[in-house]
């Protein structure tokens, strides 16, 4: 049955973070678009080696923080000024007591930023995703231990089962294998 399954990617293992980074530079220069490297920890400088730009997560968090800020403002001012104005400790209703509203505004800003951060992370990484073709490759289980891998997806326009394998071989890939969906 395995033969009938579509090829997902061609993958290779590398010896060290340094080897993986050189390999990534070659694959980037060869013009591939749909590929990735896998490592037990983030490798310093890998984003540049892969030709990736800055993460957009901060923009999502900014929107989240802004939502929290406006929620804090709205929640307090609408309720305390319009719906049910309460005068406690003789503090008047109005702009002059603004500092007393700051803590709640601040905390809600932080809370919504954190939710946006985690939600944005899930969105940008498309996780949780409990099934992935790479998990079918036995050697890949060491990716969370001390294994360093590179996989070029079959969807990439430049992908060719023979030429891509050759490229991976040239740049020092070991255990080169086809990964099926």
């Amino acid at each position: 049955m395995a033969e009938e399954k579509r090829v997902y990617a061609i993958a290779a293992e590398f010896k060290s973070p340094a080897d993986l980074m050189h390999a990534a530079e070659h694959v980037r220069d060869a013009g591939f678009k749909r590929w990735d490297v896998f490592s037990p920890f983030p490798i310093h400088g890998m984003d540049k080696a892969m030709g990736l730009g800055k993460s957009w997560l901060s923009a999502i968090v900014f929107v989240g923080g802004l939502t929290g800020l406006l929620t804090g403002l709205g929640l307090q001012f609408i309720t305390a000024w319009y719906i049910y104005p309460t005068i406690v400790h003789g503090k008047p209703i109005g702009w002059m007591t603004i500092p007393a509203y700051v803590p709640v505004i601040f905390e809600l800003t932080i809370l919504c930023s954190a939710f946006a951060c985690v939600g944005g992370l899930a969105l940008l990484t498309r996780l949780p995703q409990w099934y992935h073709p790479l998990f079918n490759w036995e050697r890949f289980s060491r990716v969370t231990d001390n294994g360093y891998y590179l996989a070029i997806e079959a969807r990439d326009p430049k992908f060719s089962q023979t030429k891509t394998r050759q490229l991976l071989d040239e740049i020092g890939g070991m255990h080169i294998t086809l990964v099926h969906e």
Partner: protein
Amino acid sequence: MASDTSTYDTQKEEQYRAEVARVPLVTNDRSAQWVTEKVSVLTEKKTPLWWWIAILITSPIAAFGFFCLFYQVSTGVGVWGENHPVGWAWDITNFVFWIGIGHAGTLISAILYLTRQQWRTSINRAAEAMTIFAVCCAGIFPAFHVGRVWFAWYLFPVPNSNGIWQNFRSPLLWDVFAVSTYFTVSLLFWYIGMVPDLATLRDRSKSKLRQWLYGIFSLGWRGANRHWRQYEMAYLILAGISTPLVLSVHSVVSFDFATSVLPGWHTTIFPPYFVAGAIFGGFAMVLTILIPARWIYPQLKDLITEQHIDKMCKIILLTGSMVGYAYAMEFFMAWYSGSPYEIWVFLRNRVADPYIFGPLFDVPPAPYWWAYWSMITCNVIAPQVFWWKKNRHNLLIIMIIVNMVNAGMWFERFVIIVTSLHRDFLPSSWGMFHPTWAEQGLFFGTFGLFLTLFLLFMRFLPMIAMAEIKMVLPEADPHRHAAPENDGTKEAQH
């Protein structure tokens, strides 16, 4: 000119790098595989006997605490000793005590991350866990001290049965927002940090159940660099927002006191003083837990090294001295203010002991002088031994001092709350505070809860942040080719 500066800088940098021969963060030149093995195995091998013994001691204590809570809820809050004039005592003392303990975890995970203190990596997971468990314990007290706890929803921002909204200008409501935000953000930060390590446990699982559980919670993490870059950004942002958060939480806690008009509470020094005290007490608790953990699991000695303990002792020394300065400044301001009430609280309610200061100022001894001087001894005097390197490397001395600090920080909150309240403006209502068994039992019970949760954490979750440790290993440097010498076969030299 420009090119000159650049070459000069490179040379200088090389020189500095050579000069600062740093002690390695992970000793004995361990490999990534060694880290995975030694940390994962703590959750994989057969449950050790000590663990069963420990949890059989701590869980009944926790259960007793819950029994006391049940008794309090079913009978009424009058089973506690709080009464006029001391309306807040152990409940709020314990709340501030526990919430303060949590702060060291956030300091380690967020502030030390932003300041690039890489030594934090081996202790941050356990410290963050401690934060979450401490906040769980802390939350019990304010929630149940309201008396009829089923009305606690009045604190949430929804209108009550009469359509009245909360008073958002009350520090007590700020507290609700601050503490719940703190708990939520700490939990998210802890969990997000743990995902790659849960994936490690998933990939090593032998049984179906473990594979399934760790598989679900690791969200299908596969170490892709396209994920790592988002992940690192998320981690940085969470650290960035946790830093002002942790400072705000204890500031808001201090506002509960500082915004009132009670002498002894009404002071502007409270927010920084509370934050320093929280970090001080929190680090003491981190050491109280990690030193025994390191003794039980000797393999952790290469990860939580003497260098880590030394640095934490230095932080305790620093923050302890800051707290000492705050105590002195409070006392000075009471005198400098010229307010007879302020002077009364500090001199006659706190400082005046029967032997030295009472006779010196010619005032009768303060009823709670022993609490004040316990606080000074434990928080200000005791940590001064950490000026000597020898003491920062003697685990017995450290354990004694940090436990004094734990006790001293509890006394600090007790002193602030009870000594300010027990003699108010109306001498006819003066009185002492007497704790009952129900509140003593509940406080005791929270220690059981805290330790039980920590034992469960040690057994079922990766106690050390493996992925982060691997990042600081020499082999993680993409400019280095040689493999490490020690592949895990050699034993640690201790």
